[in-house]
């Protein structure tokens, strides 16, 4: 369970990674691998955070967070997922945690669209001041944008952390499902990363590098 000593730092970290995705500073803190690893350390189980982070990162590698496109927000969900997995046997907890992280990522993506509309409303109301080159208006809009994203992120992380308890209870009610969900999450993540890699590589020269990479990775995996 998440203790009171770690719930507030987890909420703060989830807010930071939520803002990082788009508003500030886009420093890769919102990548699920990073968000979950730190959250795992905060919750007292770095190993669980790393495993959850790796699985969610596999799904994130199938996404392109570009401009106006709609994409999931993995960060706050990864924080909640790592908190859920902390302290559980990994083969039982990983699937449940990944499931929570993926659902929260989709919810987070929807809230990004809402945030963009809220920003748009503010910018429309400030049109005359912007056209007149008022630096105070620009500064105010920027701060309001970051503050709105902070509110979005804290609510999203709070929802995810609130769901940890009920999902753990549900997991205990269906003990056999945990292991199956872990296998589904791993298989789905590997497919996501594979599909994303092929889409990025396209045709021709990069495909040769894909083949070489699979060969290298296969040898290292066999030796390790």
């Amino acid at each position, binding site marked *: 369970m998440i203790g009171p000593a770690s719930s507030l730092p987890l909420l703060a970290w989830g807010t930071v990674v939520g803002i990082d995705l788009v508003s500030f500073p886009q420093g890769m803190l919102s990548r699920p*691998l990073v968000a979950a690893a730190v959250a795992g350390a905060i919750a007292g189980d770095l190993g669980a955070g790393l495993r959850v982070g790796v699985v969610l990162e596999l*799904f994130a590698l*199938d996404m392109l967070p570009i401009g106006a496109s709609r994409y999931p927000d993995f960060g706050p969900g990864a924080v909640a997922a790592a908190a859920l997995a902390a302290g559980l046997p990994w083969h039982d907890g990983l699937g449940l945690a990944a499931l929570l992280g993926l659902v929260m990522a989709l919810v987070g993506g929807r809230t990004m669209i809402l945030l963009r509309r809220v920003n748009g409303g503010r*910018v429309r109301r400030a049109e005359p001041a912007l056209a007149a080159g008022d*630096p105070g208006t620009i500064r105010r809009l920027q701060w309001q944008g970051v503050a709105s994203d902070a509110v979005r992120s804290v609510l999203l992380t709070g929802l995810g952390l609130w769901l940890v308890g009920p999902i753990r209870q549900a997991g205990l009610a269906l003990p056999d499902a945990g292991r199956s969900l872990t296998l589904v999450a791993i298989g789905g993540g590997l497919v996501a990363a594979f599909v994303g890699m092929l889409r990025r590589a396209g045709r021709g020269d990069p495909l040769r590098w894909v083949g070489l990479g699979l060969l290298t990775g296969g040898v290292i995996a066999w030796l*390790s």
Partner: protein
Amino acid sequence: MAVLTGRVSALLRLTGIQATWSYERMQGVGLGSAAEPLLRGLFGGDGPRYREALGRATGFFNANPYLASAAVGAEARAEADGVPGPQIERLRTALCGPLGSLGDRLFWTGLVPALASAAIVGVALGFGVWPVLAFVLIHNLLRGGLSVWLLELGWQHGIGIGAAISGSVLPRASTVVGRAAAYLGAAMLPIAGTWLLRGAGRGDLLGVIGLMAGLLVLRRLAGSRGSALMLTLAAAVAVILWHWGTA
């Protein structure tokens, strides 16, 4: 020739270029915010030239955020050189496409997946949290260095920034990091799979392989409508319902 001041402030503000991202101006307000210290240094803080240039700087703009410093530097130089306003607006619009596509190739389909894949390999090989920290550090060092360099390049070349970027090392670099992403992304898969499935029984492994084959077929059939994420969630719901039914 005018002297550019306010670089540090502009670069810091560029980290928040998408704070006011909206469907109307996209990164426009963020670009204006980043350009403001440069324009203040060029024209003083409250004159008509400053206000006119700042008003222009907040117009529509959308590019890869990590390459936007080139547009900020070029726009500041064009304003300093007295280039007519409509021409500056055309410059900014014209930069959206190249800075967007080059930056996306460089970062979103190159550097980020390459570094993330390398970090996963490091974690799977037992290096703990260090590969994750290295991922964040390397990305931000490269991104920061690139922002500084592109701001200078934009300031040096002004309205000729497009040609300067085309002739720079960046297009070649995007090809190289694309190959690195393909190689590391592919190498990561068997290593991560082996690590995550360590200790799994023969039945579990066969189950995962069957699931992956099924997801790949469904992904192929569903096309862009069925992402691996959605198909995985559907499979997870099916698993839960099955266990619920047999409990």
